[in-house]
């Protein structure tokens, strides 16, 4: 199977100048990222703030221009477009295929545009429809996300957070995309609304054969929605694996740390917890030499401090990890083998 999207050696460097005559600091937000997104799957990118997951999403969507590396998109077998090398104009048609959903439903909708215009805007830009057809397509997109017709003439502030997020999804869907990048799309929502949106995203995926790149910091949500997971730390992908494999037996110590820290809505599991990981995420401009995680890793040895591990397949399997000792260390997964305690298991 060919990947719908392939990211190769993607690097993004930001340079910041302190003051007018100050030194230029360069921050490597993404270092040599390699990823594949298969058609029809949901690939989750997880990590803590500053790990580069949002930057990665924006480089793929070309909201940011990558510093080096390539992003190639294969809409059908034998037809591969290297998105990262296209000019803005050449890119425009492909923007229909790759759409983005944003985290903050308040700031991602133009407060001065009505719902109709918000959803119609992509169609107008790509000159795909006008008049009655335009209206019909807007209404049908809103219909798919469960926004009623009488909302067309209202401004976004008249809606609750969940409804605004639905409108944002309608904006993405109206162009019949192939790949949807959801950047923390449910993080700002209350749990009950979050559940509605997660169900909606799932239904849309089935109905329209979508592929998701699901960027999130919430491992509970990721376990629920993703087929495969890529874990990022300080601009590196440290592990990728099928969701169940990753949660069952993580191969990178950072993945274990993330799973350990995840609060689980079951008080009976409190006792099984390790002590939380020590230390803080280092500053990007001050990335440790060797393995980026060695400063906080409980398995760190001299090798880790000296030599940067490559992302490599573990035991030939579908799991990839960037850890020198991935095969040998015993890491704890997140699934609990004890029978579920709640009535709502």
């Amino acid at each position: 199977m060919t990947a719908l999207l392939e990211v190769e050696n993607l690097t993004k460097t930001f340079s910041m100048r302190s003051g007018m005559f100050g030194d230029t600091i360069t921050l490597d937000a993404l270092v040599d990222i390699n990823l594949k997104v298969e058609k029809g799957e949901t690939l989750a990118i997880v990590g803590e703030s500053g790990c580069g997951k949002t930057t990665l999403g924006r480089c793929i969507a070309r909201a940011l221009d990558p510093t080096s590396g390539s992003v190639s998109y294969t809409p059908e077998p034998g037809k591969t477009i290297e998105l990262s090398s296209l000019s803005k104009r050449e890119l425009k048609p492909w923007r229909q295929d790759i759409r983005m959903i944003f985290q903050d439903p308040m700031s991602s909708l133009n407060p001065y545009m009505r719902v109709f215009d918000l959803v119609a805007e992509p169609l107008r830009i790509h000159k795909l429809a006008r008049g009655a057809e335009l209206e019909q397509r807007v209404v049908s997109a809103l219909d798919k996300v469960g926004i009623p017709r009488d909302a067309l003439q209202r401004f976004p502030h008249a809606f609750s957070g969940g409804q605004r997020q639905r409108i944002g999804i309608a904006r993405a869907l109206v162009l019949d995309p192939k790949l949807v990048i959801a950047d923390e799309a449910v993080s700002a929502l209350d749990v009950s609304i979050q559940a509605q949106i997660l169900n909606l995203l799932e239904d849309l995926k089935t109905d329209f054969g979508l592929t998701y790149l699901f960027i999130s910091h919430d491992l509970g949500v990721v376990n629920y929605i993703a087929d495969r997971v890529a874990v990022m730390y300080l601009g590196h992908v440290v592990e990728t694996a099928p969701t169940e494999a990753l949660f069952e037996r993580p191969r990178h110590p950072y993945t274990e740390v993330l799973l350990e820290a995840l609060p689980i809505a079951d008080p009976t599991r409190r006792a099984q917890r390790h002590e939380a990981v020590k230390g803080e995420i280092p500053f990007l401009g001050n990335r440790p030499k060797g393995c980026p995680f060695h400063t906080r890793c409980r398995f760190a040895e001299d090798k880790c401090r000296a030599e940067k591990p490559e992302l490599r397949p573990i035991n030939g399997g579908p799991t990839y990890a960037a850890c020198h000792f991935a095969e040998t260390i015993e890491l704890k997964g997140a699934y609990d083998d004890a029978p579920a305690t709640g009535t709502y298991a």
Partner: protein
Amino acid sequence: MMPQTPMANDKTLLRMEDVSIVFSSPDEADIEAVRQVDFTLTRGKTLALVGESGCGKSVTARTILRLLDKNARIPSGRILFSPGDGETTDIATLNPDSTAMRSIRGNKISMIFQEPMSSLSPVHTIGAQIDEMILLHENLDKKGARARTIELLEQVGIPGARQRADAYPFQLSGGLRQRAMIAMALACKPDLLIADEPTTALDVTTQAQILDLLRSLRDEFGMAMLFITHDLGVVAEIADEVAVMYLGDVVEQGDVFDVFKSPQHPYTRALMSSIPRMTRRADRQRLNPIQGTVPSPKNRPSGCAFTTRCPHAFEPCAAVRPEPTGTSENHWARCHLLTDPQAPRVDGLIQPKVEGGSDAYQGDRT
């Protein structure tokens, strides 16, 4: 059948009795943001107030410190605070700006917030700010205060406390700032710590660290903790007791193990079925979210607030406010399903026998 949480015991620190909070605005009708909330805070224990945005959990917490805006008032109820000197103060009757209230605030009851930058001054070092707190409330000289500050910073796990005391808040990471704020809140060895979403803005690993810290500090200081959060996972981590709020009502309250094991209010049950469970693919179940959105407090039904979204709502729900109904020793919920013999049967609820109950529901308090 008001459940009797173990009260009148000398560990009881603060009792909210029937506290309502009303906001008035010049253009609109008054809004009752919180309706008759009852709970008890005990030394060494953590009560978590959990609910979605707008449910009144933060308002409730701020009321204890009388930090609400001028347009808020407490038309009914008492907030009895007994810090152990034999005296009991009704905080609800105090003037928010009075000396009595100020001596409680920051001294006996402290609060930490979601965003530490909002409560730390950006122009003073964190050490200076904690010194100030100590000097204000305790009989120590400057040197003694600084020694205590450094001790506190070490206690909250700030590495290199002596040097970090001279750092400005913006020089610290989010996690360290939160720790500094906790140190400041603990400066006067409070009896009660109110934590308003203290980990919401933090990354998971930092969140886990802060939760560990709060738990151990609570035990060390023997204080009571009121923990406000929207995250049921965090509740399960830290709480001894949990109160679930919806639209100004505490709909269910009880021991955290009981509530998570056998939630009795439809809202609590819906909330729990809205969070993805940590299960393998094979056991995965589709989420079952609550339909619709939270109505505005203006449109709250006079009966049970959850009526408009409740899948089991029946005849008395909209009009008659359910009374708290105990389902086990330390666990109650406000729901007609638990009292009305005519109520629809729902799996997992402790409902009255159909033949048994005489009168359906017990009066209307609103």
